[in-house]
Structures are given as structure tokens and as C-alpha cells.
């Protein structure tokens, strides 16, 4: 049976690869997850994004069947698997420490899902050969995991997951043990592999840049609750609240106290300046005006000559980041971060007076108390 790398896709009438509804789990007193519900469409790469302790790994373990939920259902391709043992669910999982069998060779590790299920030798051999050529790890098949490099171990774990062509792949921070350079390389490879196979990935990570880079859609978890479900780009452009805006994006978004005065031509007073002409923001701000918290991404601020600048401030810190540099400026009312290219940053020294203007782009507004997004 030749390994068919492109499974037959009859339009998208498949039911969701995975549906989770009302999932809750508590360890002792603290509620690790309460009432989680989301859907993972067939063939998508969905990312569970959240800081440590947000409930990512708990969610994956409940879906895999390694732990039992206190309440809620896990449905895969229309079958309710909530009560099934992991082996009876059509899933594969990659753990953050990869969990390869230390006493088995690369070949035995990759082949184990098939050999456990009693597939015959010839079928196993050619499927492992196929997978190891795709993942370029044919040279490590007869070696033990401890003799392999980080990247090779990671690919063997992937091979073990892929060999059975399961309906759903669960990946728990698969790239966390790798070097910074290798991590970026393998990200692209993971995404390409997912798309070529048309497989369904559910990947958990605390790293927002990883989420943005690979996700078709992102499910943001905080304190065991789902805060937002959105595509990677709209998670950046349309965060649901202040915390989400702060969590996604580096350097961090500027969150400043501001007041909207619809009466005098809709100017917005922020950081000791009153700025008119922020049309998009003015349209979506509540008509009554009043105080709110404005969210300005670092790339939405630009340096300009003092006379023409809306905001005056002093340079507080210059951090070179290669081609670009991050400038932190301060005045009595506020502290702001902006990103400029390295050459123009070299001209500035801590203490310089600089002028800042706000570019009328996708500015965000949050309710000062609740942090919920209002515009």
C-alpha cells in the first residue's frame, strides 16, 4: 500500500476534525480549565496560545485521553471519544521533551505505532522509508536517540506521529528544546509538512511569534478560559482586550491614558498632546467621548522634527536590534516605545529631546477599567 501523501479531500464536507465543548478540569482546588469550547477544522493548523499555566497542556492531555475531564465532551470527526483510551482515539501526540523510546533505534521509534497494531513487516519498512526520506532522517534510523542532534530527534518524533496518518496531531511546544536558529527553520518546515499532508495540527505554544508564523487560526487561552479565537493576523490587528494586545507583539504595545473629546472636532488628548485627524479611531470610539486607554503599536509612532511633532519627549533608552532599533522615550505623562531603523537611531543619545507623531493606522482603544476593547 503506497503511502498516499495527499489524502483525498472531497471539498470541506468533512465534519470538524475536532470539536471540544464545555471542557473543564481542576487539579485539587485550582481550576486548570473551565468550560473550554472550540472547533478545529479538517486540514487546518490551529494553535493554542497562552502563557505558562494558561491550560494549554491540560487541554491537549484531555483531547489525547491521558487525563479525564471533570465535564465536557471531546468529539473527533463526529465520534464522541471522551471516554475512550488514548489508543482508541485516532490521534498522535508530540510532547515537549519528545518522549522517544530511549532504548529503541530511530527506525523502531517511528515504526512503533504500526508494529503495536500488528502491521506486517514489509508494510512497516516501506512506510518508514517513505517518511524518513520526507523528513530527511534516513541516516539516523539505526541510531539511538541519545546519539542524535536536537533537530534529528524532533524529526524522528514527527515521523512516529506521521506514520499512522492519524486524524489529528497534537503538538505540545514541539520546538521548545531547540536552538533559536533551528527553531525558526523548523517552524517553516512544520507548516509546509502540515500543508503538504493536509493533516490537522493542534499545536500548543507560549511563543506568540511561533503562533503568528504557523497558525491558520489561533485560540488564545488565559487562566483556563478561551479569550479569543482569530486568524494570526487579526489576533495582532484586532485583539479582544488589553492583555491580548500586550501578549502579542514585540516590542510590547504602548498603552497610554487618553481622553476623547468629540466636542472639539474629535481631538484625542494623549501623552500631554492633543491629536486631531485620527479618523479611523474617531469613527469607532463611543460617541459620548471621555477617558479611555489607547493602544499604539511601536511601528505606529514615528520620529519627526520637534516643531512639527504632536508629542515632545526625551530619549530614555536606545536598544539596537540589528537592522532596527527600539527607542524608549519619556515625558511627564507617559513612556512610549517606538521602532526605527538602526541608522537613524544612531543619531540619538539618552536625554535628547525628540518629537513623536502618531500615524493614523490601526489604533486600538480599551476601556480603562475592564481592558475590554471598545474601538
Amino acid at each position, binding site marked *: 500500500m503506497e503511502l498516499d501523501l495527499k489524502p483525498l479531500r472531497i471539498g470541506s464536507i468533512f465534519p470538524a476534525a475536532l470539536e471540544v465543548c464545555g471542557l473543564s478540569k481542576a487539579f485539587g482546588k485550582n481550576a486548570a480549565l473551565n468550560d473550554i469550547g472550540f472547533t478545529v477544522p479538517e486540514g487546518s493548523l490551529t494553535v493554542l496560545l497562552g502563557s505558562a499555566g494558561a491550560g494549554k497542556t491540560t487541554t491537549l492531555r484531555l483531547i489525547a485521553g491521558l487525563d479525564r475531564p471533570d465535564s465536557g465532551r471531546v468529539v473527533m470527526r*463526529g465520534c*464522541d471519544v471522551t*471516554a475512550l483510551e488514548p489508543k482508541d482515539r485516532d490521534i498522535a501526540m508530540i510532547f515537549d521533551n519528545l518522549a522517544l523510546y530511549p532504548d529503541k533505534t530511530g527506525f523502531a521509534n517511528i515504526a512503533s505505532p504500526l508494529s503495536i497494531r500488528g502491521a506486517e513487516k514489509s508494510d512497516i519498512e516501506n512506510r518508514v522509508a517513505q517518511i524518513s526520506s520526507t523528513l530527511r532522517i534516513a541516516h539516523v534510523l539505526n541510531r539511538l536517540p541519545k546519539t542524535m542532534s536536537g533537530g534529528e530527534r524532533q524529526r524522528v518524533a514527527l515521523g512516529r506521529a506521521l506514520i499512522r496518518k492519524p486524524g489529528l496531531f497534537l503538538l505540545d511546544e514541539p520546538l521548545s528544546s531547540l536552538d533559536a536558529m533551528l527553531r525558526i527553520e523548523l517552524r517553516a518546515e512544520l507548516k509546509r509538512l502540515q500543508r503538504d499532508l493536509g493533516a490537522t495540527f493542534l499545536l500548543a505554544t507560549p511563543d506568540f511569534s511561533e503562533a503568528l508564523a504557523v497558525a491558520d487560526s489561533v485560540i488564545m487561552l488565559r487562566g483556563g478560559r478561551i479569550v479569543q*479565537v482569530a*486568524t494570526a493576523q487579526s489576533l495582532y490587528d*484586532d485583539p479582544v482586550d488589553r492583555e491580548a494586545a500586550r501578549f502579542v507583539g514585540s516590542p510590547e504595545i504602548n498603552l497610554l491614558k487618553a481622553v476623547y473629546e468629540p466636542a472639539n472636532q474629535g481631538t484625542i488628548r494623549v501623552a500631554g498632546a492633543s491629536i486631531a485627524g485620527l479618523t479611523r479611531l474617531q469613527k469607532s470610539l463611543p460617541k459620548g467621548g471621555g477617558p479611555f486607554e489607547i493602544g499604539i503599536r511601536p511601528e505606529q509612532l514615528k520620529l519627526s522634527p520637534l516643531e512639527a511633532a504632536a508629542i515632545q519627549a526625551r530619549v530614555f533608552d536606545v536598544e539596537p536590534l540589528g537592522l532596527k532599533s527600539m527607542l524608549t522615550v519619556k515625558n511627564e505623562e507617559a513612556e512610549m516605545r517606538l521602532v526605527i531603523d538602526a541608522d537613524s537611531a544612531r543619531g540619538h543619545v539618552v536625554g535628547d529631546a525628540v518629537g513623536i507623531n502618531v500615524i493614523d493606522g490601526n489604533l486600538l482603544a480599551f476601556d480603562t477599567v475592564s481592558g475590554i476593547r471598545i474601538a
Partner: protein
Amino acid sequence: MSETNELRMVSQIPDLATDDVPKAGIVRGKLRDNRLGQLLMLPGQIVSLLVLVIPLLVAFYISFTDWTPTRGSLVQATLVGLDNYKELLVYDTRFVEAVVRTLLISVVCLALEFVFGLALAVLFLREFRGKAILFSAFLTPMMILPVVVGYTFWMLFQSNGPINQLLMLVFGEAAGLQWFRSAPLAISAVIITEVWHWTPLFFLILLSGLNAVPENPVRAAVILGATPRQVFWWIVLPMLKPVIIVAFVIRAMEIIKLFDEVFMLTRGGPGTSTETISLYIYKLAFSDFQLAYGAAAAFLVLLGTLLLIHLLLSPIRNQLLEARR
């Protein structure tokens, strides 16, 4: 993917079941992870219950009666309340002496074993040829059956035995000592035997502890300019504290039960000068057949042991008993 905020819900059309998707609905092998946990621990709990807890309850009951084997079955035993305990603590000087003597021997032995064990362990931090063979050689005493150790030292301490020969060789003719005739000599013989037998355990635990001390703090101290002696006293030894406590607790648990070596060496003699608490209870119960009285004595010792262990154990309770991974 369209850029709507919410994910587009795929309509629920029954799927074209592919071959390897599990059949819907059949709930096989109902998930029961923690029941397996309990199942695994059942045998251990049963054995502990049957062979430890029940006998202790029986002993506890008997310690309040005046039952002896000749009295027939347990049921006829008449309750005498705390008489046994009163007798033991107030009137039975031999019991109190045995307890004090056992504690004395334990303290002296533990101290000597710790000092010799630590000295040997520090010596083993240096590099020298044949280290592995020497390590095994030094562990040998610990491996020998207690009764054999007792009997061997009984031979060594004979009046015409090798120890006296060495003493006479070194200190002249009169130096031969009658080890088993005078109380202080008999007790020192017991202590020498015990220290010889169990110092290797301290050596082993402390050496393992020394090797487990994290390297970086030691390197940091060296880079800051500390001399090896300063590194040892300021960094290594304090970090060794938990291991030292473990060694003391483990040995304390064992040494209080001292029976085999003394039984073979002096059988508690001369008189009762080397009679440990275990030996006394053995004599009470199995020579004089005062089983009830022996049970009461045994219980007092049990409580004393638990109290002592609790005191010694508290500083490192989590290390020994951490159940969670």
C-alpha cells in the same frame, strides 16, 4: 481562511467514514486511570495490613492483659489496664537501663560512624589509582550478615585472640584485656563491632552526597578566590546537610534495633551490662515467656522510635516522602 473573527463552523454532514477512523459510539475500555493506580497499590497495602498493622493491634491489646502462653487462648486473658506499663516505667530498672544503654551506644556509634565515614568520603574525592577496587573493599563490612560480624568479633576479642596479641605486642605483656568480663570493655567491644560494621554505610551515603553537590556553585566559589578548605567548609558541607540528616535517620532507625551482633558477641553479658532493649524484650518474651509484659515493653520502644524518627526526619520530610513526581 476568511478573516472573520469567529471560525466558520463546518456544517454537520455525516462524513464519508474512512477506513481507519474508530467506529463511533462504542465505548470500549472505559477510561479509568486512577482505578489502575489503586489496583497497583492493593497488594502492597494488603501485605502491610495483614503482616504489620494487625499484629500490632493484637500486641497493643495484649499489652493491657496478663496473658502468658500457658493461659491458653487470648480470650481468657484478663485486662490489667496499665499495670504492665507502670511496672516497666517505674519499677523495672532493667528496662530503663536497657533503654538508656541502647541510646548511649547508638549516640556513640553514630558519632564515630559519621566522623570516620566523612573522613573516608573526603579522602575519596581525590584522584588515585585503584580507587574503584578500594571503594568496593571499603564497602565489604556492610555486606556481611550481622550474626557473622558478631561471631567474628567474638573470636577477635577472645583473651588469646588476635586483638590481645596486637595489644601485647605494642603495649607489653600485661596489655591483654578480658573484653567479656568487665562492663566498660564489653560495651566498647560492642561499639567497635558496630562502628566497624556500619561505617561503610555513612561513607557510601556521604560520598554519594558529595558527588551530588552541584558543580557550578563550587566553581563559582573557586573563581571568587576561595581556597579548597574554604570551599569545603562554606559551600560543600552546608549543601551536604540534607544528605547527612538522611544518613543519620537511616542509621538511627537500624541501630535502635541492635540485636544480632550483641546476641552473638556478649549475649547481653557480663550480667546485663551490654543488654540492649531488643535483647531485653527477646529475653522477656522468649526466655521468661512473659509475652504480655514483653508486648508492653515492645510498644513503649515502638512509640519511642517513632518519636525519635519524627524528630530526626522533619527537616527533610519532603525529600524522603515526596509522593508527587
